[in-house]
């Protein structure tokens, strides 16, 4: 009796499911044979793509091809929306596209129409819930799916599902404490209706180089059958607005795919990738208005496997990059290489298991504080696909990578970020699009920090005798502005006589170590120079050009200094009689005429100039205020002259004196200047 009842229930349930599911069978559409024929054609076209794509296990292949099944499937769906299989397949196709959030209703409907439509339905349903941030539903579906896997040869599949469950748990946690950011589309000067990807910006956010799949010209547009190549584009921010993006010239862009990878802080050195030899990295340098002929990075960097991302360190002496080369930890790993004394990239070293996982690491970006690395990874505590992580180098060790958080990271692939030196702004490529664009756009991210607490007021009546009110204590926590500990030194170099821009060498010097830590060149057309570097050191900037006096300036910012921008117009004086060199990086012991070691770099530069220009004589002038000790100023000037003499400069060419600072040179008090007195 019981058996019969069970059978009845089962057949009813099954009957109900079968009754709801309408297969693409001509018998089901006898009343509309023409419509069926057309719809079936579309269905078959979609099925061909789906079947071919399903055979591949490579996710990037699937992402590229499943999406092509969407259009014919959507047409077929209009005719028959009640096919369990079509719902399932359309849902899966959406899940591999940039419109993942459309997948869920189809998969839910497939489940309702026929839970047994495909053994993978549970997995993809879980994935669709994950995409929609419905974490617990996703976990439930994943677990149900796990239970369907027969024990034995499903270890890899089980690991995939378990990873997805971990992603959901991570995502649930991250979503509860969202990152406070604003997203703004970078605008129509940057973005096109095609995919615009991988933005890299200069430290001051005035230059952006990015990758675009837009057709370069009308001819290319006409080739409708051929998908346009990825090319590299550039835009400049003028008066707060991005200029219309322009394609970088031939030589950089070719018939192959090129993609922007890294831009130096000053926006004058660019690394891009080209799909040659599996994907190699090239570098080009801006000279005036012209980008140099790209040079392939050396064999330590490029291999026959794919190199897919790069980032300069603040001093340009270390390159972080991602490579698929063998013997790594995962598929794509982060490596770094340092410049050797000959200016070649040295041996590439795997960044190690703290950063690299058995999964794929995607892109790298290094902050100019010299220690904070942003990178993308499918591993660590990803909430799905690639997520952006942050790790800080301390005492030679990378910190535990920290997921930068939702909504910058999503269950989808979040695979690129480039940040301004102040850490306030970032650029990503994203499908967070308005207006129905499917492909990615470049989006500006504004980080507004942790939520600022609001302040409430309350008070108490203290005595019944009279109105004696006192305010209750106010909680006033301060959310500190977490700016990177970096300094942005920027400005223009001009010829003091003509006021025209000069191409000059701008050296940033660690005064304590007495070594040049970074060198940039001001642009010959704009005179612009820029460098971003960590705070906490006694720096000087030395601007040098042949036949001009060296300009130097000192910056000593404590280690805990928040982001600081220093802007300086440098007017280089020609090496002529009467020219004055303010020795701003020559330091004395307090109240004494004893040169401090930090002065040596500038003094040695001075020696070189005087050795080179033997016809010049130099007078050291020690400046003092009216009240100050004239004797000390004179002694300090003489100490500099004596040093120069000790380093081989003929004493007859040298003289020294003290003088009182006037209103026009009041800033020189306590300093020594060098005045060229004749040739």
């Amino acid at each position: 009796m019981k058996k019969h009842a069970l059978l009845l229930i089962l057949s009813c349930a099954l009957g109900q499911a079968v009754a709801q599911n309408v297969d693409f069978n001509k018998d089901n559409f006898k009343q509309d044979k023409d419509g069926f024929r057309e719809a079936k054609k579309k269905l078959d076209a979609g099925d061909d793509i789906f079947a071919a794509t399903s055979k591949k296990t490579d996710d990037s292949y699937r992402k590229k091809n499943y999406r092509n099944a969407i259009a014919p499937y959507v047409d077929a769906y209009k005719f028959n929306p009640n096919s369990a299989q079509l719902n399932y397949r359309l849902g899966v196709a959406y899940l591999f596209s940039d419109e993942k959030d459309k997948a869920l209703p189809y998969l839910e409907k497939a489940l309702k129409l026929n839970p047994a439509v495909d053994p993978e339905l549970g997995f993809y349903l879980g994935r669709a819930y994950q995409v929609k941030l419905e974490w617990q539903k996703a976990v439930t579906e994943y677990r149900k799916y796990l239970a369907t896997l027969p024990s034995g040869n499903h270890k890899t599949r089980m690991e995939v599902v378990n990873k997805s469950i971990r992603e959901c748990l991570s995502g649930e946690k991250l979503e509860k404490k969202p990152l406070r950011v604003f997203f703004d589309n970078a605008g129509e000067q940057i973005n096109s209706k095609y995919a615009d990807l991988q933005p890299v910006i200069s430290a001051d956010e005035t230059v952006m180089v990015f990758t675009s799949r837009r057709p370069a010209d009308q001819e290319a547009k006409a080739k409708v059958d051929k998908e346009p190549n990825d090319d590299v584009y550039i835009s400049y921010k003028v008066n707060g607005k991005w200029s219309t993006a322009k394609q970088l010239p031939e030589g950089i862009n070719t018939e192959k795919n090129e993609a922007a990878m890294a831009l130096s802080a000053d926006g004058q050195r660019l690394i891009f990738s080209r799909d040659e030899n599996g994907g190699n990295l090239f570098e080009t340098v801006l000279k005036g208005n012209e980008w140099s002929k790209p040079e392939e990075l050396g064999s330590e960097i490029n291999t026959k496997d794919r190199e897919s991302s790069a980032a300069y360190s603040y001093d340009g002496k270390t390159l972080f990059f991602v490579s698929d080369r063998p013997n790594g930890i995962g598929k794509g790993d982060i490596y770094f290489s340092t410049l050797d004394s000959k200016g070649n990239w040295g041996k590439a070293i795997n960044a190690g298991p703290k950063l690299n996982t058995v999964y794929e690491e995607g892109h790298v970006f290094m902050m100019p504080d010299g220690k904070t690395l942003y990178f993308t990874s499918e591993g660590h505590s990803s909430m799905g696909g690639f997520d952006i992580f942050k790790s800080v180098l301390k005492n030679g060790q990378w910190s535990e990578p920290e997921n930068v958080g939702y909504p910058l990271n999503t269950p989808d692939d979040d695979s690129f970020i480039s940040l301004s030196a102040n850490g306030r702004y970032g650029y990503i490529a994203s499908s967070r699009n308005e207006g129905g664009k499917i492909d990615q756009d470049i989006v500006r991210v504004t980080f507004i920090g942790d939520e600022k607490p609001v302040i409430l007021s309350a008070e108490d009546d203290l005595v019944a005798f009279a109105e004696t009110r006192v305010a209750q204590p106010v909680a006033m926590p301060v959310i500190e502005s977490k700016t990177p500990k970096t300094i942005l030194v920027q400005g223009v170099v001009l010829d003091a006589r003509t006021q025209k821009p000069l191409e000059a060498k701008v050296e940033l010097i660690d005064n304590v170590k007495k070594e040049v830590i970074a060198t940039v060149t001001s642009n010959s057309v704009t005179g612009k120079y820029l460098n971003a570097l960590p705070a906490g050191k006694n720096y000087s900037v030395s601007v040098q050009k042949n036949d001009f006096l060296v300009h130097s300036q000192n910056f000593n910012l404590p280690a805990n200094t928040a982001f600081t921008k220093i802007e300086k117009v440098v007017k280089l004086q020609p090496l002529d009689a009467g020219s004055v060199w303010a020795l701003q990086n020559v330091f004395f012991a307090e109240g004494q005429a004893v040169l401090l070691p930090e002065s040596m770099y500038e003094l040695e530069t001075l020696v070189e100039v005087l050795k080179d220009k033997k016809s010049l004589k130099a007078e050291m002038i020690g400046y003092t205020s009216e009240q100050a000790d004239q004797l000390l100023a004179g002694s300090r000037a003489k100490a500099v002259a004596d040093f120069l003499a000790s380093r081989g400069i003929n004493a007859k060419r040298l003289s020294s004196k003290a003088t009182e600072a006037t209103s026009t040179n009041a800033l020189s008090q306590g300093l020594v200047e060098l005045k060229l007195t004749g040739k």
Partner: protein
Amino acid sequence: MIRILLFTFVCLLKIGQTVAQEVPVAPVPVVPDSAAAAKAAEIKILAEKMFQSGLVQLAQKDYRAALADLDSAIAVKPDFEQALMGRATAWLELKEVDRAITDYDKVISLNSAHAQAYFQRGRAKVLLKDKKGAAQDFTQTIATDANHYQAYYQRGGLRFEDADYKGAIDDFSAVVKINPRNGYAYHDRGSAKRQLNDLEGALADYRKAVEVNPDIAVAYVNLGSLKQGKGDWTGAIEEYSRAIERKKDYYLAYNNRGRAKFEKGDFDGALADFTKSIQLNPQYAFAFNNRAAAKYKLKDFKGAVEDCNFALQIDSGYGYAYFNRGNAKEMLRDATACQDWEKAAALHVPAAKAYLTHCQEK
């Protein structure tokens, strides 16, 4: 205040024995001559008649008529202390505090042991903000009548206002020693202890206050605030609710309960309480500012800005409202947020300074 004085006076008159104790009647001069005695009796009867009529007018709140009767009584009998006390009351009701004080002075000149005259004069001086003179009168009241707990209470209040919390505690303690059922004295002593950071002592006194007089709404507010200070937001909400039960229009209690709900994360509940507080007192800037805070948490940034605007219309020097408006404007991407933080910083809201870092950036 004047109504209280009148009420006190009338009560004292009605309770004959009490009046006899607290307001001693000046002795009638002995006239040996029988004619003179008859005349004196006649004057006494006439004065008493006018006095009684004046009392009736006082009770009927016809102060001008009362003054006319009492003037007549005093004219007939210039040393009629009760009539002088009654007239002082009428002057107070008519806000003629100086004239009331003159009558109390007269009573005291007639009877330097008239405790109630000192007490009432003290209270009149309170109205004139003459705290020092008032305190002296209350002290004199106590010197004359050591059990005059009301004088202790009033002097305790003045000491509290002068931040002499120890002195206030002594006076309130004297009150409860004389009258252990005086809930207000327990309450106010609790507040004095609170000001001296004796929070446990304050808690005990507030509890005692509501034990002896469960209707003291303010005591529940202060109990709530002490619980809130310990992080017991749930307990605080319960106490504020008790205050509201006893005083339905207690806008301060609604505001405080709203804040406690806010701290518990019940932003909708907080919003409702702040709204009620505003309804009860549309000039209460705190409630507008706090409702703005609740709206901020509920992501109604536009509403938050509007409420801060209201708060600032009421009090243009309200730094927190500038601060909160800046926070809300930031979320609306309104660049004038920086101006609000600057203003808040200038109004001594130190937290605002930290937010100015990015204001120069585009």
